């Protein structure tokens, strides 16, 4: 799906800056949120694989991923507000 500037929440922010900020904020997340995100999107494990590997219910992992991403979203909103001044 192509990015449309009107729909792109961060259209006015430089992509590299946004990426750096996201990665920095990811590393600052509490472990319980950061590690499932890394295993899911970086290590490319499925929820099922993560669940079997870590012996944690899929529902718990989904909830952690969901909450972790929302935390990142909030952090990035702060960046947008700073840039907007």
């Amino acid at each position, binding site marked *: 799906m192509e990015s449309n500037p009107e729909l792109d*929440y961060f259209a006015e922010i430089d992509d590299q800056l946004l990426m750096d900020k*996201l*990665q920095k904020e990811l590393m600052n997340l509490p472990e319980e949120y950061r590690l499932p995100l890394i295993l899911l999107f*970086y290590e490319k494990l499925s929820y099922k694989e993560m669940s079997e590997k870590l012996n*944690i219910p899929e529902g*718990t992992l989904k909830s952690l991923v*969901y909450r972790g*991403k929302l935390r990142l979203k909030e952090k990035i909103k702060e960046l947008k507000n700073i840039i907007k001044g």
Partner: protein
Amino acid sequence: MKHIIKKIWEDTNQLTDWDKKHLEECDLCKKEYLLAKKIESSIEQLPELNIPIEVDKIIAKVLLRPFYRTWQLILIGLWVVLSPFLLQLNIFSVILKSDQVYAITILFVLIYMMVILAFGYHFYVEHEKGIEEYSQKIDLFLENQLMKIQK
């Protein structure tokens, strides 16, 4: 129109054909989708990370510990709050008349609440401190592992 924002934030890769069609029609969901995608791709493009296999057990502990401790605290709290009421109501209702039981119950509740608040605050502070210290230990452990790999 039913929005799919929660589903988007759980995992954009698990969207169905219906969800994708919905994204074409709904600007609100599409905006959230693009944002979630950006966050996911920032994780995918992280500089090289090596997560040693033996770290899995530590990860599991990190993931479970805060939740375990929270539930433990809730259960202890419930037990502490409820058990004295049940106990004293049972004892006093046999010995005293109903209005006396009522008055003593009020007094008992006030004293007990003060004690619970004091102890509750203390345990809450200890609980938060414990999680933070544990997280720091894990960070240190992961950093050491990373340094060993880089060497």
